[in-house]
């Protein structure tokens, strides 16, 4: 083909899978950004990994092999340590990339030329936040017994959010965590476990769930015993059904991770570096690593939230790269 044609960039969106609303939002965010570019200059390719580090790395290498340097990557890492391996691959291939959520311990993106930016949502804070909110809704606020449903063992988000719960428990000595189980993010498992629990702990005040899916499973078990709304639940993610559950009073709160925003803006960072609009080396630390906003949602701000996010896809001005920066990020040592 001719040299004159504008270079077409492939935006690789490395997400976990297509079977979850949030992950699809990330991919959609990438597509929103691509749509904001002149037609024909960018295409989006979605890579899935199902939580498997090897599959994620292999997919990224395959994409780079297929498209050469005209690739930019958005990575929602299967696990934190994978960012280090990906950083190495991208550095060698000279491919600009960004990551979200997790960062390998000891990895400092600003030491890399092609690792443009990393943004995260603070899983620890999320777990902490929903726990505190839930405790406040108990008959005697701050007093009661709770159960906890954790996400998949060995998964970063699961670990972080659970640590958040632990901190909340420390600060609320009136709350007793009577039991905790792992439901692997699965509503089905959450349903089963909750059913069993309800046989043993009929007088429970709340169930802390590490994500909305599990909370929704637990709610079905509660509904069968007509305990929904009486036993409080909470989750993280902000999937549409959880919002509905909050509206119905079955759930106390959730923290909505805004996939559109993360996907769209982070890709915008990578693209800006790719086109030379920004030089990562010259950006200060806090503009390369930052926390993005997660929307805490409960009964009080439900309507606002729905207006902003649920009726249609949000629109963003991707030229304003500072927009998603909501707080400072600290590197784990």
């Amino acid at each position, binding site marked *: 083909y001719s040299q004159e044609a504008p270079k077409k960039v492939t935006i690789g969106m490395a997400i976990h899978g297509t079977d979850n609303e949030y992950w699809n939002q990330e991919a959609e965010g990438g597509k929103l950004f691509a749509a904001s570019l002149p037609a024909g200059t960018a295409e989006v*390719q979605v890579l899935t990994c199902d939580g498997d580090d090897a599959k994620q790395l292999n997919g990224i290498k395959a994409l780079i092999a297929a498209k050469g340097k005209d690739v930019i990557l958005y990575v929602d890492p299967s696990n934190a340590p994978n960012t280090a391996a990906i950083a190495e691959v991208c550095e060698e291939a000279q491919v600009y990339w960004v990551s979200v959520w997790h960062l390998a311990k000891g990895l400092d993106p600003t030491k890399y030329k092609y690792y443009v930016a990393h943004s995260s949502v603070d899983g620890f804070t999320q777990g902490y936040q929903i726990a505190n909110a839930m405790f406040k809704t108990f008959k005697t606020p701050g007093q009661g017994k709770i159960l906890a449903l954790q996400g998949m063992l060995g998964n970063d988000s699961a670990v972080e959010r659970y640590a958040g719960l632990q901190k909340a428990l420390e600060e609320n000595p009136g709350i007793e965590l009577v039991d905790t189980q792992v439901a692997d993010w699965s509503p089905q498992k959450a349903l089963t476990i909750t059913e069993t629990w309800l046989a043993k702990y009929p007088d429970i005040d709340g169930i802390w769930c590490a994500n909305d899916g599990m909370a929704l499973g637990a709610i079905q078990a509660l509904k069968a015993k007509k305990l929904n709304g009486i036993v409080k639940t909470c989750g993280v993610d902000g999937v549409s059904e959880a919002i509905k559950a909050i509206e119905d009073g079955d759930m106390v709160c959730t923290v909505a991770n805004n996939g559109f925003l993360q996907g769209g803006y982070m890709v915008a960072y990578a693209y800006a570096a790719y086109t030379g609009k920004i030089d990562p080396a010259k950006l200060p630390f806090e503009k390369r690593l930052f926390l993005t906003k997660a929307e805490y949602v409960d009964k009080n701000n439900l309507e606002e939230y729905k207006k902003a996010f649920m009726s249609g896809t949000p629109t963003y001005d991707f030229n304003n790269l500072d927009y998603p920066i909501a707080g400072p990020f600290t590197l784990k040592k």
Partner: protein
Amino acid sequence: MPKIDLKKSVNYLSAVSIIVLVGVFSAINPNFISAANIKNILSDVAPILVMSIGVTFVLLIGSVDLSVGAICSCACVMTGTWFSQMGNWVIPLVLLYGLLAGALNGVIFTKLKIPSFIVTLSTMSIWKCVALLISEGAPQGIPLELWPSLRWIKHSFWSIPIVFAIGLVVLGLHYVIQRQTIFGKSVFAVGANERAARIIGLDVLNTKMFAFVLSGLGSALSGVFFALILKSSLPTIGDQLVLVAMAAVVLGGTALTGGKGSVLKTLLGVVLVLVIQNGLNVVAVDAFWQQIVFGALIIFAVYLNADKGGRGVIIK
């Protein structure tokens, strides 16, 4: 006898599927057969290959080993976690672990006479637990400052990554075991007709035992590979590999019913699976469609390999 040779070549029909797929993929995107991508595929193949080779022997005796994924995870975690203290010396230790884990399967299987499916399902859950305990439930990266001592894993001879080269050596060893040792011959006899194997005077119990040991060893090596390539300890890395490894072995042409197959065929099976996986990304199949296309291609590939000769042969 040319006739026999022809028959034999039919045994390696998976090669045809590979060639067909490589052809299709490279027609869609010529970069598929670029040196870089071939290198990608080969290094992706290595960990699954070493695991599948061991699994081949277990399937050859007609049993199953569901614990390979968990042993792999556990090995990956051990390597990743202890690398900071032991450096590369952790590798032999982890291989020893794999050997013992395989032997444990073998002992429970042969001494307690419990179906292998149950034995390995149970040890799978035990090793999963151990992996989580060692890693304290979360994936840990190998500290960046230690990376220099891991450089060797990225070495490659021309376009052949060192991991694949090691995989080939392992394959070669197993091929010799399969063809030229008493154990190898016994494996086939035990798988094809255990009653006869016993009467013939073969050591059935040790054969079974050894098959599980090899499977454990291979899985541990694959865990080591994952830890070194991904530079982290991942307690769930093996979860999805059990079915993938078994599928690759069967795709190569080794029968689940035992007694028929070869580790060489396993190489083809593994390559086939990873060519499909890699190809789907290289030719940019939509994510929503990837699983669908993957499944369809697998069925198509097995169909190409299926022995259409003997209608009398029973397919289970």
